[in-house]
């Protein structure tokens, strides 16, 4: 969910609660004020009526409200003594509305010429349901207005104030560790953003550094391993020439030498990977992959014959790519070798060259391999001493260098496709 919608939902929810409570409180305080004011008015009227009764005794016999807003009844002294002024909400027929409407009624008692009278004064009251309805509509408008304002503001804020944040996000999205163009710095007055910016910059810098140092480590380690490897191999070879050795001792030696050879190949492949990733193959020419592929296949001729593999090359078009000629050779060599190693006796290999693609299909085990991992370093479908597990990783590294796509699929045969 977008930040805009997220904050809007939260604000709308919070406002709904706050405004509801506010409306209730407002309504009741309003009502209290209204009663207070009306009761004051009734009090005043009471005073006026009593005063008038003093001068004009005829009104003492005004038993009904009729045209005026008061009525007077004579009551007994007993009833009058225990009487307290009371304010009541009641209904009264209103001529204009043609219906019973709420009124406020004050009942009080007064003494006139030694007789007790009960005085009832009324005044028209607000209609509570109308008040609530009006209040509800006003509050609703206020609420909608506020929510709309928040959305508009938020939109504006997100665009304006959050701009550095989104810039940074964009930079980070484009950032690749193996192509370390440092993340561009953003300019902002907001403390949090400049802190975020600094943190991201430091974080990215640290990552680039550790990535580079790891890369250098692999490179240096591979370099430093060369000499001890060379010494070990040469010493063992010298030892193997000793004619006094028994066959089982020779077998042990042979096994040690085999493993050192494997280590040597592994080391060379790792060095090659480092060099590809460090872009140390700078020379670029137009390489004719048709010619190169045929040359590589010729070089594998002995191997193909020995493993009884049938290789077909299908040239649909000329495939000419701008790349390093050595790397082109390395890619094709590794692809063909991979197709030979993971094949079965009497199997087949098809090489299909098109204007912008190269496809290598081969027979092998009757089961699809993990297409996510097949190009990873040291991912071998079958564990074997046969390969270093780096051949396809090298193919992918070269692909990444030039922006080629490398993919694997299984269609009753293993298919590797390079899209240029």
């Amino acid at each position, binding site marked *: 969910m977008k930040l805009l919608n997220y904050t809007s939902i939260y604000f709308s929810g919070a406002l709904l609660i706050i405004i509801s409570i506010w409306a209730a409180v407002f309504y009741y305080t309003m009502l209290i004020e209204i009663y207070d004011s009306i009761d004051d008015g009734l009090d005043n009227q009471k005073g006026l009526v009593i005063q008038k009764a003093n001068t004009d005794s005829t009104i003492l016999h005004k038993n009904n409200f009729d045209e005026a807003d008061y009525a007077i009844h004579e009551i007994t002294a007993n009833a009058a003594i225990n009487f307290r002024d009371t304010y009541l909400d009641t209904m009264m027929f209103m001529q204009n509305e043609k219906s019973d409407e709420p009124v406020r009624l004050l009942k009080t008692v007064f003494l006139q010429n030694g007789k007790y009278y009960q005085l009832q004064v009324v005044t028209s009251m607000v209609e509570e349901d109308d008040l609530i309805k009006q209040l509800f509509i006003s509050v609703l408008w206020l609420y909608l207005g506020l929510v709309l304002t928040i959305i508009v503001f938020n939109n504006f804020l997100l665009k304006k104030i959050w701009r550095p944040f989104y810039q940074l996000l964009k930079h980070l999205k484009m950032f690749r560790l193996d192509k370390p163009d440092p993340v561009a710095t953003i300019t902002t007055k907001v403390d949090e953003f400049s802190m975020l910016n600094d943190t991201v910059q430091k974080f990215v810098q640290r990552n680039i550094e550790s990535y580079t140092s790891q890369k250098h480590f692999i490179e240096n380690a591979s370099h430093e391993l060369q*000499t001890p490897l*060379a010494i070990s191999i040469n010493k063992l070879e010298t030892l193997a020439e000793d004619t006094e050795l028994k066959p089982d001792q020779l077998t042990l030696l042979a096994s040690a030498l085999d493993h050192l050879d494997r280590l040597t190949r592994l080391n060379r492949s790792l060095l090659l990977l480092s060099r590809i990733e460090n872009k140390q193959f700078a020379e670029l020419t137009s390489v004719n992959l048709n010619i190169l592929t045929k040359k590589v296949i010729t070089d594998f001729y002995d191997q193909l014959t020995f493993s009884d593999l049938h290789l077909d090359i299908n040239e649909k078009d000329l495939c000419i790519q701008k790349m390093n000629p050595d790397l082109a050779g390395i890619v094709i060599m590794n692809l063909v070798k991979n197709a030979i*190693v993971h094949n079965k006796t009497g199997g087949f290999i098809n090489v299909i060259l098109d204007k912008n693609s190269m496809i290598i299909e081969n027979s092998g085990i009757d089961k699809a391999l993990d297409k996510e991992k097949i190009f990873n370093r040291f991912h071998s479908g079958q564990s074997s001493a*046969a390969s270093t597990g780096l051949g396809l990783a090298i193919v992918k590294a070269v692909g990444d260098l030039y922006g080629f796509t490398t993919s694997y699929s299984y269609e009753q045969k293993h298919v590797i496709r390079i899209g240029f």
Partner: protein
Amino acid sequence: MKILVIEDEQGMRESMVRSLQQEKHVVESAPDFYSAREKLETYQYDCVLLDIGLPGGNGLVLLEELKKQNSAEGVIIVSAKDSLDDKVKGLNLGADDYLAKPFHLAELHARVRSVLRRKKLDGSKYIICGNLKIDTEQRMVWANEDELILNRKEYDVLLYLVLNRNRLVNKSALAEHVWGDYIDDANSYDFIYSQIKNLRKKIKDHDAGIEIEAVYGIGYKLVA
């Protein structure tokens, strides 16, 4: 032949010196830049094996100085820095070959021999081994004056074994020399065996006076 091994790693130097001595070469060695320079200025060698990263200076500087003196030495750069730049630089400066560490001793001998031969330092145009005569320029082989018809790879295998005659050649050294990366390591032993079998048959048919012995698990030895 007189050979100078310039190499700072003691273990490496010892192996190279010892192995070259077995080939009846006169071998001297220098462990650093200054002693190497002194020896090169004082004596004449047929072949110099030169490490690039030396204590005291860069081996390529020694190469430059050698070439300025117009010396006839063959120079093979032996380097752990298997980098294209160094290789190109070294060969441009006049080195005869470039050997990346780690290498098999058989490969070292083959390279030394071919450098010496290219420099015409071993006197003969042909390599003689048993009843075999090999012309490396024309890639032709005769056994008792009969031409031995070999395919390209058989020739390479034979030449390699001849250059390392009477020595045990590791099968992976042979595979790497002849087929390079174009061999799958899984069945390389069987693969080489089948190639050797063909070669043996031809040698036997022509009574070449040599024999290729298999040393179980390790490789082959050409006995003349």
